[in-house]
């Protein structure tokens, strides 16, 4: 499997996915607890 960080587009997509994951964790686990 190719490392997404080897391309700019892969880096940006990984950053957006991480943003969504962290947002859901903060909203439903940390703030919602």
């Amino acid at each position, binding site marked *: 499997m190719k490392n997404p960080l080897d391309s700019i587009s892969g880096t*940006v997509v*990984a950053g957006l996915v991480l943003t969504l994951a962290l947002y859901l964790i903060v909203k439903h686990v940390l703030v919602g607890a």
Partner: protein
Amino acid sequence: MDFLPGIARWAHLVAGITWIGLLYYFNLVQMPALKDAGADGTAAGITKHVAPRALFWFRWAAVATWVAGAWLLGKGFVDAFLLRDAYAAIGVGAWLGTIMLFNVWVLIWPNQQKILGMKPASDAEKAIARRVAMLASRTNMMLSIPMIFFMANGLSHRAIVGL
């Protein structure tokens, strides 16, 4: 001294723009430019005159951003890093920024010193240093996306995105 948080926020933004602006410059401009410059033998102009200056402002802007951010958090510093209550969102941003600062000083800068010939290194060591520095820089670019999201929406604007 009500104006101090305003000064801290201002300093945090100015330093942060310098830091992340240079991070994006490295990833979007310098890396592809060096690839092309290496092919026509003009890379020395970048590695000798541009990269050391850019790295100087990059690493010290990272420190200034973190210090101004800590100053801005003030009494909420511990709550942010413990991800407590209303500080949870800005705390995630603060953790991401701290990991990025670590990457700058522990992974990017020491390896760039080898790549640019500021520290002695064999060709094999330089090749490893190039890969580590590139991946650390790309990791920081990836982390900057959620970091800026949580900085923008973390404390004063968290209600807008339901945090």
